[in-house]
Every structure is written in C-alpha cells, then in structure tokens.
C-alpha cells in the first residue's frame, strides 16, 4: 500500500503505513504466542500423549489481534469513524449467531455456530464484549474528540463512583442484608441456590477478613488460606478427636488461627511489602505440606471426615431421629426436612460475616485502625510518631487470621470433611482477587466482587473453566487501570466539620 499521510481531524498527521506496521507487528507477536500452545494441543491418550493441530485457531487469533490493534490505533489517533461504523454491525451479527440457538431453533443454530472462529462460546462472548466496548469508546471519541483520560481524571472519576457506591451502600447495605435474611424463605430458594448463597457469603467473610490485612494495614498476605486451614483443622480435630461441640470449638479455632497468625507474623512482619508477600505465600504452602504429610495428626491427603454438623445452639440437632436430646423439627413442631440445616448454616455464616463487618467498621475509627492505615501510607512517619509498627501490624495480621479461622471452622462443619486439597494457593489468590476487584478497604466492594467472582461462575457452569483465567486477567487489568482497586474510596474516620462524627459509610 502506498504511504499516504493525511491530516486527522485533530490536526495531527495520520500515518497509515505506521499503523499497518504496528498492526502487523502485533499479528506477528500473536502468531508467535499462539503457534506453540494454541496451534498444537497435546491430547491425553492411553500410554502417552498425542498431538492435534489447530491452525484455524491460530489464524483466527492473529486476525482478531490485527483488527483489534487497528481499531485501538484508530481510536488513539482520534479517527473513530471506521470503528464506529464497523463495531455495531459486527456486534449485532455476532450476537445473533450466538443466540441463534434460541432465535432459529437448535439445528439452524448449530449450523450458524460453525462459522464462529472459536469453538468456545465463552471466548466468543468475551470477544463480543470487547467489540461493544470498542464501539462505545469510538462513540465517545467521536462526540468528545478525546480518546484518553489522564490517569488522574480517571482516578478522580472512579473515586467519585466509589464514593457514590459507598453512599448508596448506606441504603443498599441494609437492603442487601434484608434480602439475605429473607433469602432462604423465597420460593425459588432451593437447595442449590442456598448452597451457592452459603459459598458466596463465606467468600464475603474471607474477603472482609483479608481486607483488614491487605486493605487497611496494606500488608499483602498471599497465604491467607493457611489461617483458613488452621481454623478448619483445629475445629475438625477438636470436634472429632475430643468431641467438643461447635460452639466451643469455633472460638477456639479462631484463637488457634490468630495464634498462628501472630507466630508466623512475628518474625516476618518487618520485611518490606513484596518480600512479605512471598514469605506469606511460602507459609501458606508450608502449612499445606505439613497437613499433607503429618499422617498421625491430620490423616494426610485422606483428610478428616465425619466432622459433626453444628447443633441448633446446643439445644437441638438437625437430624430425623435423635436418640438423646432433641431434634430441631420436633422442637419447633415442623416436618423434618434436611433443608433446615442448610438454612441454619446460611444464617450462621451470615452472622459470622456480619460480625467481621461490624468489627471492621468500628475498629477503623479506633486508634489501632487509624494506625493500620497510617502504616500503610508511611511506615517511617509512623515510627517518628512513636507508633510501634510491629505490634500494630501483628494485631492486623492476627485479627485477619482469626476471622480466617472462623471461616475455616464453618467450612469444616459445613462440609463434614476436609483435606489439604481445599487449602491451595489458588484459594488465597481467589480471596485476594475479591479484595483487589472490590477495591482495597471497601466493604461493599468485597460483596459485589464475591457475588461476581463466586456466584456467577456457580450459576453458569461453563464459566467455571474460565474463572481463574478471568481472575488473573482481571487482576492485571485493574492494577493497570486503577491500582487502588476498582471501587476504592476512602471515607474519613473522623471529621472536624460538616457531618459531625463520620457516619457509618458502609453496611
């Protein structure tokens, strides 16, 4: 193509050849990336592996990469028109094809789907979303003639949104809580939904617990799952070995986890942030390996089974026939149904999570909470003010660990069975992703993130495979886009003017 340079509407010369060069380079890189791992797949066959070619996928990836890059360059150069004209029809066509199963019946649908470049529907949906986003950005560039906001503008805008969400949370919080309270009695709340609900609330609790450590105190803990494990195993061992009841074992398990947190934290909390992160990760793995290999105590990879279910505050059991004592349904004169226990578990975890939340909201306004935040901001300045950095960090670490331990006990009693497999690094990463996505220190953010990251993939099974992939990508994008976290907004803990005492900003 001949080099043709024309002036763009913004007055800057537009170099078409440079654009094509750039897009070509992108294509080349994508080709190199995709060729090995996407183009050839190892197939597991009995007695070894075989290989399969998928050059079509590589070609599609390269083509999409080139087109996408051209679109981005056009937006950057403030020439949104081509994008604006192509994106909507493309999106519509893609949407129609993706929905063709429902629109034209399964046969035509299957026929049409064959034209899609990738087999995986999730990937196609993701591409559709990207096209829509590009189209919207093109529209914005077209009307505003600005393509990029500066990082400060963006940050300020996101902060305002975060503030709005937090203000909304004052209403939304009780509303969400109300929904959660009546949730088990809603007509559509079957066992599966309740299980998902329990799972989501467990992660909300874990997220809130980790938020104390990461969001408030600014200590990146990559081994949070270790405390979850300590809580679960303490509980399981107490309950199965010593026959201690749930309500006695729960605080003890929390205490054990807190002790573990303090013991592990003591030597390492003076390390610089990124070293600390790696060391906590090491601790997490160490605890898992110990659980895996200490057969006498933990039963190794087989785990501990037969963990007793919680009783109804020690008054009654959730069983059909109870030899000595009461059964829950008899106590309340109800028909026996196993769902009673599930509902009870749901309320249990909800209550535990609320304890964590209320605790966090209160402690933020106490000296120790302010010192956590101050340490996050500047440790050297804290020392110059006579604040003991190690003890302050230890309290954050210990309290975070304690809540992790509570959640762990709950996990153990709900599952009735635990094994080291449940406590891998991936688990820590998921909890961290919830905190990061929600915005450090934002309580409502954690709720939203947990619903999105845990609830959605449970609903749409096909997403589950892609869940961790998306987590990883989301963590990267958010850090690039807004390192403070998506919905992060900090409400002062005390005010001199205006609102008098700072109101509870979040649920």
């Amino acid at each position: 193509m001949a080099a043709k340079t024309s002036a763009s509407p913004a007055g800057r010369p537009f170099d078409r050849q440079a654009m094509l060069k750039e897009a070509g380079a992108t294509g080349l890189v994508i080709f190199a990336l995709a060729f090995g791992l996407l183009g050839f797949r190892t197939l597991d066959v009995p007695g070894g592996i075989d290989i399969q070619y998928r050059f079509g996928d590589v070609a599609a990836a390269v083509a999409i990469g080139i087109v996408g890059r051209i679109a981005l360059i056009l937006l950057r150069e403030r020439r949104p028109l081509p994008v604006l004209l192509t994106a909507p029809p493309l999106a519509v066509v893609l949407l129609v094809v993706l929905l063709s199963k429902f629109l034209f019946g399964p046969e035509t649908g299957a026929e049409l789907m064959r034209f899609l470049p990738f087999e995986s529907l999730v990937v196609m949906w993701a591409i559709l979303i990207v096209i829509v986003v590009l189209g919207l950005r093109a529209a914005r560039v077209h009307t505003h003639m600005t393509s990029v906001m500066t990082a400060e503008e963006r940050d300020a805008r996101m902060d305002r949104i975060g503030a709005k969400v937090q203000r909304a949370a004052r209403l939304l919080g009780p509303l969400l809580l109300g929904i959660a309270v009546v949730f088990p009695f809603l007509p559509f709340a079957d066992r599966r939904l309740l299980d998902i609900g329990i799972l989501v609330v467990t992660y909300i609790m874990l997220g809130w617990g980790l938020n104390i450590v990461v969001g408030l105190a600014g200590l990146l803990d990559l081994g949070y799952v270790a405390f979850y494990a300590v809580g679960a195993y303490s509980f399981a061992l107490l309950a199965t070995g010593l026959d201690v009841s749930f309500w006695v074992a729960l605080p003890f398990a929390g205490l054990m986890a807190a002790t573990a947190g303090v013991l592990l934290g003591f030597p390492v909390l003076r390390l610089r942030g990124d070293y600390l992160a790696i060391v906590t990760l090491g601790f997490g793995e160490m605890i898992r390996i110990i659980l895996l290999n200490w057969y006498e105590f933990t039963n190794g990879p087989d785990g501990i089974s037969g963990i007793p279910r919680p009783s109804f505050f020690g008054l009654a059991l959730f069983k059909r026939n109870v030899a000595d004592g009461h059964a829950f349904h008899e106590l309340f004169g109800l028909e026996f149904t196993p769902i009673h226990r599930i509902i009870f578990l749901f309320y249990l975890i909800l209550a535990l999570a609320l304890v964590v939340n209320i605790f966090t909201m209160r402690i933020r306004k106490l000296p120790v909470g302010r010192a956590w935040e101050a340490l996050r901001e500047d440790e050297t300045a804290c020392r110059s003010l006579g604040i003991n950095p190690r003890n302050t960090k230890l309290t954050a670490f210990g309290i975070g660990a304690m809540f992790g331990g509570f959640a762990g006990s709950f996990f153990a009693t709900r599952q009735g069975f635990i094994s080291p497999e449940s406590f891998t690094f991936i688990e820590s990463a998921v909890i961290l992703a919830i905190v990061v996505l929600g915005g450090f220190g934002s309580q409502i953010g954690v709720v939203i993130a947990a619903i999105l990251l845990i609830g959605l993939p449970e609903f749409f099974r096909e997403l589950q495979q892609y869940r961790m992939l998306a987590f990883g990508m989301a963590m990267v994008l958010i850090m690039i886009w807004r390192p403070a976290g998506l919905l992060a907004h900090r409400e002062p803990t005390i005010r001199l003017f205006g609102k008098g005492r700072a109101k509870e900003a979040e649920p």
Partner: protein
Amino acid sequence: MQNTFAYFLDQLINGLTLGSIYGLIAIGYTMVYGIIGMINFAHGEIFMIGAFISIITFLILGLAGITWVPLALLIVLIAAMMLTSVYGWALERVAYRPLRGSPRLAALITAIGMSIFFQNYVQLLQSARNKPMQPVISGGVEVMREGDYVVSLGYMQGIIMVLTIVLMAIFSLMIARTTLGRAQRACEQDRDMAALIGVNVDRTISLTFVIGATLASVAGMMFLLYYGVIDFFIGFLAGIKAFTAAVLGGIGSLPGAMLGGLLIGLIEAFWSGYFTVEYKDVAAFSILVLVLIFRPTGLLGKPDIEKV
C-alpha cells in the same frame, strides 16, 4: 547405605543437576529485580511454558521422523528459546510496562495475576493432566561403585550441567562486554539518568525480560528431559524455589543467582536423600524465610541502607 560416600556422591550429582535448573530460572528473577525492582512472579510460568513448548516440539519432531537425538535437541532448544522469549517480551509489554513507577504491591499483584492467567491458559489449551514423555537420552557413565551401589552420572545430567555452564558463560560475557550489558547496568543504577544519556530504557527492559525468558525456557526443557513429565502447575513450585535461590544469592546479583540455585538444588537433594522427601519443599521455604529475616541481602547482595 545412607552413610556411604557413594550415596553422598549420588545426592551431590542430583543436587547439582537440580541446582543448574533452578539457577537458570533464578537469573530471570534477579535480572528483572535488578532493573525494575519488582518480583516477576510470573517468571515460573514462563519456565512452565518453555517446558510445554519443548514437549510439543519433541512430539512434532517425532511425527516428522526426526529422531537423531542431537539434531532434535538442537531444534527443540531453538524453538523453545524463540517462542518462549516472545512470552517474556509480551508479559513485560502488556502487563508490566503500564505499571512502571506505580507502587511495588500493584506490580506484584499484576505479576500474580499474570501467573494465574498463564497457568490457566496452558491448562485450558493443553488440559490439566500430566504430560509424560519417553526419555530421549538414557544411560550414563559409572562414576563409582561401592558394593552393590552404583553411582552414575547420567548423560542427561551431564548435558544439563554443561549446557548451564555454557549458557552462563555466554550470558556473563554479554553482560560484561556488550552495549546491552552496559545499558542494563546503567538502568539498574538510575533509570532516569540512563534515559537522559541516551539509553533506550524501554528496549533494555524488554531485552532483560527476553533474556530471562530464554534462560527459563532452557530450564524448562531440561526439566522436561530430566523428569520426563510436566504439567501446567510446575511453574509455581519451581518459580518459588528459583526465587528463593535468587534471594539466597542476593537479589540483583547474577553470580548470586547461580550460586543460590546450586545451593537450593543441593539442599533439596540432600534433604530428600538424608531426611524426608515429603518435606523437601518445606526446607526450601524455610530457607527463604530464614534468609529474608536474617540476611535480606543474601550471600552476594549489596547492603541496602535505609534512607530517611
């Protein structure tokens, strides 16, 4: 048997082999840390990708009928180095460059995100199963015999050690003698100043990642050949151990990384040989914690005086 010299020698050979692999990965950590001060947590996954590209190339070569071992090895080596280095480059360009100058923790979270991404990317495309491979090189030379116990140095082990030494030599020369090496050292000292005097900082950093990925891919290939089986998760543990090696040697120091790698390999081999295999990873983690607590600058690192 455990107290014979032969047994000791056996563990020594195993340790040095393993240490060579860790050392090659550790260089990537240490170089990146030296130049941009971040822990490239995803580096272990680059190693894993190197191993996967190696196994795929081996399979293709097998299908194509190229079975003369030296040629096959050479082709695999080149293919793995080239394709994996693109991953290293893309990692820096896409995920890390936009974050340059932001807080350490943001960069670390990004790195963790990339690590999770790569793991699942490979798992999705290549399935989560173990990928076994027939041994390409077998046999070895007998080093010592004590009763029934034969200590031999496998050809594979020999190749791993020799290749590591050769790569290290080339690499050290490159850092010491070439413009790139000088540019790298300049960027380590002061990035802004380096830019002012005309060093292309972006390119230098990119190249650092490319070199790190290249070495990691070689380590990946060695791992594949040595153990004969890989999966999408190998990068996690190997990465942490290599990072431990880099810290032990003194992060930012290249000879330190190699030394640390050898030490971690030896510790792991001797720990497995004389204590328990199960806790060998705990040993590595404990060393990481102990070094960071008692000697954060490592064996060969420079002290870092706090500036207030």
